[in-house]
């Protein structure tokens, strides 16, 4: 059973079509790039997958569960349980320190407080010594790593990363992708990276290309794909 299974997904914003995905699926444990220029509907698709934005048409199955058949609270619970998100703006909660940001993610996912899990996640991204730091005390690179740690601390099945490398130089772009892939492997999660950044093409083989103006999406599968 694929982790993500999308059928007949269409969405328009202010009458302008932005998404047209006849069919797309991602097997559990595979990683996939959502490639497309700005305005091609990458963020809309990520939000639709996460149960945050209802698409105009279509069906989204996440781990076999029809996301938009669920009530709002059910979608919230599913999101907390299955998905870890790395936002484009990273956005850590400024009122909380680094460790508390991770505890918050676990709490919102309905997981018990686990100091070792939080410390371990931060340790894996090289921030084991910054548990008590405030977000404003972190460099941009450190924030990025905390955001990745926050996304994986709930041991999700799916990690959604929205433009994680767009503002980074080549070296940091490669480092962040490495970190995302590494962390996805550690927790056995599927990584879905939405990006317009061509530098990511050769790092993840499976791709869903979203052309501009809502033209039908094209799927490219890399080596080792079962289908």
């Amino acid at each position, binding site marked *: 059973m694929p982790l993500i299974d999308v059928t007949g997904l269409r969405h328009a914003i202010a009458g302008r079509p932005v998404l047209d995905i006849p069919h797309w699926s991602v097997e559990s444990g595979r990683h996939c790039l959502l490639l497309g220029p700005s305005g091609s509907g990458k*963020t*809309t698709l990520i*939000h639709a997958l*996460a149960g*945050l*934005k209802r698409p105009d048409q279509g069906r989204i199955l996440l781990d076999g569960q029809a996301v938009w058949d669920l009530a*709002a*609270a059910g979608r*919230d*619970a599913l*999101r*907390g*349980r299955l998905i870890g*998100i790395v*936002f*484009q*703006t990273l*956005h850590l*909660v*400024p*009122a*909380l320190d680094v460790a*508390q940001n991770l*505890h*918050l*993610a*676990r*709490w*919102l*996912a*309905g997981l018990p*407080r686990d100091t070792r899990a939080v410390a371990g996640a931060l340790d894996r991204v090289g921030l084991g010594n910054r548990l008590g730091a405030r977000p404003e005390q972190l460099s941009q690179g450190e924030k990025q790593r905390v955001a990745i740690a*926050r996304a994986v601390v709930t041991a999700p099945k799916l990690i959604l990363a929205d433009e994680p490398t767009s503002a980074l130089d080549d070296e940091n772009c490669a480092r962040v992708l490495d970190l995302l892939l590494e962390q996805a492997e550690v927790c056995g999660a599927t990584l879905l990276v939405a990006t317009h950044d061509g530098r990511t093409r050769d790092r993840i083989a499976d791709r869903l290309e979203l052309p501009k103006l809502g033209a039908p999406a094209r799927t490219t599968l890399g080596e080792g794909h079962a289908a």
Partner: protein
Amino acid sequence: MNIPSLAWAYLRRSALTTCLNVALLALGTGTIVVLILVGTQLQDRLAKDAAGVDLVVGAKGSPLQLILSALYQIDIPTGNIPLAQAQALAADPLVAQAIPLALGDSFRGFRIVGTDPAFVALRQASVAAGRLWQAPMEATVGWQVAQRAGLKVGDRFNGNHGLSAGGAEHEGMPYTVVGILAPTGGVIDRLVLTPIDSVWAVHDAHHHHHDGDDHDEHAHETEAAQPPDREVTSVLLRYRSPIAAARLPRRINAESGMQAAAPAVEMTRLLSLVGVGTDTVRGFGLLLVASSALSIFVALYNATQARRYDLAVMRALGATRTRIACLLLTEALAMGATGTALGLALGHGAVEMAGRLVPQARDMGITGLQFPATEPYLLILAAALSVLAALVPAIHAYRADVSAVLSRG
């Protein structure tokens, strides 16, 4: 992590705003608490000092002045009435009890009251040391008089002319302290009680000594009385039956040269007059509480605007709408509860301090360690206002389009 700890983290982050809101609420609540405490205790005291007295009869004049001077000992009397008429009242079948009062002198500002021992029973006082007065020039003093003047049984003191401190001393006519009353928290604590004969005797002697002198008008309420035409200042009456309430005051006011005033009526009038002032201050207190609620609303509304991305991220991490709304309500409730608790402490503390440090408040037995039944309503009011203040921001957060907020960044 839980909602209270998250709310606390946010409140701590905007510490100055939080503190100002809490302080504003505390000031409003504190003001109302002071008014409730002082108002309640003042009314209790007034009721206690008027207990057992249905009617006060004295010289014509202001009925309120008559009540204040005879019952509460806080105003000058309206004049004197003939003893014979007072005795006739005592014999009236409509009257169950009549206690005469003769005023005119004081000791260190404490009024010397010539009266019957029945007055002590009326005030539900008891003797702490010594005994009640029996013979002329014997005095039984109230608890505060003994404490402040350092009087003990066997001491002698001279009275001063007039009802306030500073009058000429009646030399050669000393009173002997034969007893000290236990504290009651009532007006009797501040009185020097003696037989009416003592008052007459002192003023007869005074009249002989100062014949022809200019005298203070108010200090002569009993002085004009010359044997055999003795006078008293007022009489405290208790009705024999309810029907007396309808007949006796009207008859006295219409058919005699005296005035009858009912404490219940006059005190209601007084409280309604004083009430205008307390209502104004209470209104001010409520205004402060409402302002703080408005301030909490503005703070939370601004916070939800400033934190809309925070809240959207939380939603994206799995927070339900209800949990986000609860977070804002918890913040408001925390501010409301802290402000109210501080206000209660502030109000009680201020009244207790006043009760200890301000002589007038101390005399009245004002204390901050009393907890009126209306106080829980204040807590409910503050909580309700806090929730109300958080309602609009909470609904905003509840309805927020998370996807749109996250897309805008």
